[in-house]
């Protein structure tokens, strides 16, 4: 993974921009350098300047040193991902002597560097486990403002850093970080052939990964087309569309139990596509042709109590829930072209939300943002757009870098994951909700229709 470190000035500017980003930002402005488009807010004073020297390996072996190095780097990436905290560039403190414990931190030198906060950590082997301790010091008072200790295995040192990052964001910025969140997507990377067809068709299976693309793992073995996965709100199950019964049906993989639930089954259920979990995880919305035409339905997660929400001879597909669970956004071509509509979860109060050329795959952001991201046809391909439901304005996040589809918001609404062909084949990317900080998550095969855990 290549990750760009944001220059300090830029980070300050963006940090100040977040609370003020809601007023209609002219679409053109997103293309301009952020230093120009953003004014630094004095509210609450300037953001603190933080430093993160490499964690101290308290055990003398090479493995501990490697873990210390890895935890520091991942923590650096995690904390910079949210662009909430301002970090002093690391090369400016290469000459500051490294502490050997919490007791000999050279606070004077850090003070000279104008650091306000300093994150110091230690890594120690205790028997078969690893102990990681972290303190966030106020450089002026030399007091520990925030401290945590973690015990775990050496198997996944990244998890120490992810947990630390989320807790630092929570305590310092009251922010729900996404360092421990996960992605899911479908992929044909294994090149396995679909059985029972004479055409050369590659199957697709469901994969998961950390939010930063690490630890990519396959979670289905359908030997068929398994596509469009969606994380359950508790992060323990994935609902998706599978062709393992011939036609398309809704399946749920409980990935930690290794069990499989069939939400749609039977002879007369037609084709069933694109499940979406209700925010409480008890229900699933999906599109089905069981009554002859693609309509939106809601069922309990075990497939019982199926209710039909839409009733129109056009195509209704790709449902997504509002964070409150009271509304469902979906795609319908009832007006001639595919557009985004919103309907109450009770099937009432239908309203049309977009008037673009061709839209699909709505994804509703978490609070405090009240936005729907979608793919909109622009020229030969698609671009990601975001509709602010409060103001009714739409802004563009991608600008024809390949075709960009299937957006989904991160759990805190500050990032999106999407599919793009900008690097050749279809790959999964993430970006900040202002369209910046684009990162490529997958590189092998075609990887599509991603979702971000809640």
């Amino acid at each position, binding site marked *: 993974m290549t990750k760009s470190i944001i220059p300090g000035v830029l980070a300050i500017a963006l940090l100040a921009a977040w609370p003020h980003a809601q007023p209609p930002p002219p679409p053109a402005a997103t293309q301009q350098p952020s230093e120009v488009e953003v004014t630094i807010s004095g509210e609450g004073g300037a953001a603190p300047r933080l430093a993160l020297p490499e964690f101290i390996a308290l055990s003398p072996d090479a493995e501990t040193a490697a873990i210390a190095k890895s935890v520091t780097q991942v923590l650096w990436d995690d904390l910079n991902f949210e662009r909430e905290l301002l970090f002093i560039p690391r090369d400016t403190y290469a000459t500051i002597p490294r502490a050997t414990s919490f007791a000999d931190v050279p606070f004077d030198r850090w003070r000279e560097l104008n650091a306000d906060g300093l994150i110091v950590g230690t890594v120690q082997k205790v028997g078969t486990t690893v102990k990681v301790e972290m303190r966030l010091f106020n450089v002026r008072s030399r007091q520990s403002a925030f401290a945590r200790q973690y015990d775990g295995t050496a198997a996944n040192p990244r998890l120490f850093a992810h947990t630390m990052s989320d807790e630092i964001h929570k305590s310092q910025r009251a922010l729900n970080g996404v360092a421990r969140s996960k992605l899911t997507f479908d992929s044909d990377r294994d090149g396995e052939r*679909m059985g029972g067809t004479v055409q050369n068709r590659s199957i697709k299976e469901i994969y998961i990964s950390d939010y930063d693309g690490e630890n990519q793992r396959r979670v289905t073995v359908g030997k068929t087309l398994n596509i*469009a996965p969606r994380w359950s709100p508790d992060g323990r199950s994935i609902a998706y569309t599978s062709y393992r019964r*011939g*036609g398309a049906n809704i399946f749920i993989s409980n990935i930690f139990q290794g069990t499989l639930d069939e939400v749609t089954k039977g002879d007369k259920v037609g084709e069933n596509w694109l499940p979406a979990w209700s925010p409480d995880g008890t229900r699933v919305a999906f599109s089905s042709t069981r009554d002859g035409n693609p309509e939106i339905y809601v069922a309990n997660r075990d497939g019982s109590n199926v209710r039909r929400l839409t009733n129109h001879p056009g195509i209704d597909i790709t449902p997504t829930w509002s964070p409150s669970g009271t509304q469902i956004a979906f795609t319908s071509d009832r007006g001639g072209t595919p557009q985004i509509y919103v309907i109450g979860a009770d099937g009432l109060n239908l309203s049309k939300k977009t008037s673009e050329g061709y839209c*699909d795959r709505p994804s509703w952001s978490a609070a405090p943002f009240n936005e729907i991201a979608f793919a909109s046809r622009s020229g030969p391909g698609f671009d990601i757009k975001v509709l602010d439901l409060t103001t009714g304005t739409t802004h563009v996040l991608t600008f024809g870098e390949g075709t960009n589809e299937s957006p989904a918001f991160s759990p805190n609404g500050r990032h999106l994951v999407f599919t793009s062909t900008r690097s050749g084949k279809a790959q999964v990317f993430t970006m900040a909700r202002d369209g910046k900080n684009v990162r490529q998550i997958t590189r092998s095969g075609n990887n599509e*229709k991603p979702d971000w855990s809640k």
Partner: protein
Amino acid sequence: MRAARPMQMLIALLSLTTAVACGAKKPPIARPMPPPVPPTNTAAPSRPPAPPEPVVEPIIVPPEPVRDDAISAASLDDLNRSSPLKAVFYELDSSELSAEGQRILDQNAALLKRYPNWTVTVEGHCDERGTAEYNLALGERRAIAARAYLVSLGIPADRLRTVSYGKEFPFDPGHDEAAFAKNRRAHFVITAK
């Protein structure tokens, strides 16, 4: 009025004479003749509308001609590889059958009538210019349109099931109009014979 009257008279007279003529030869049989209307019924429409005839023709062909053994003997995979049922192609964002599409389906229907044991899956496919999600429904629309046309030609609906693969299985991996045109299709796979 004056001109009409002699005409009416003439017609009445003619019908009367024919009736009398028939009646005079075989009085008991002449009356039962009219009831068998059905034969005259088939003869009458055959003159004005020609269309029904091509549909009827394939049925006349004996179901087991010797030279068709190659098809009936082939394995399902070989059969599908040679794809005797031709694919139907669609316009961008559309599931409407073109005249050419209907012509292909007419041929497919003839083949399906010739091999009444075949069951077929009609696959709907789309090109990459639609979204992955919406294309699932559009592909289904295409498959359903082809299936409905075949059913209208007398193919039993239970021999034809539909499935949509959206843009998941492009036939041509290219990114130009020629590839797109090949990928917007209803594709026929024989699943049993």
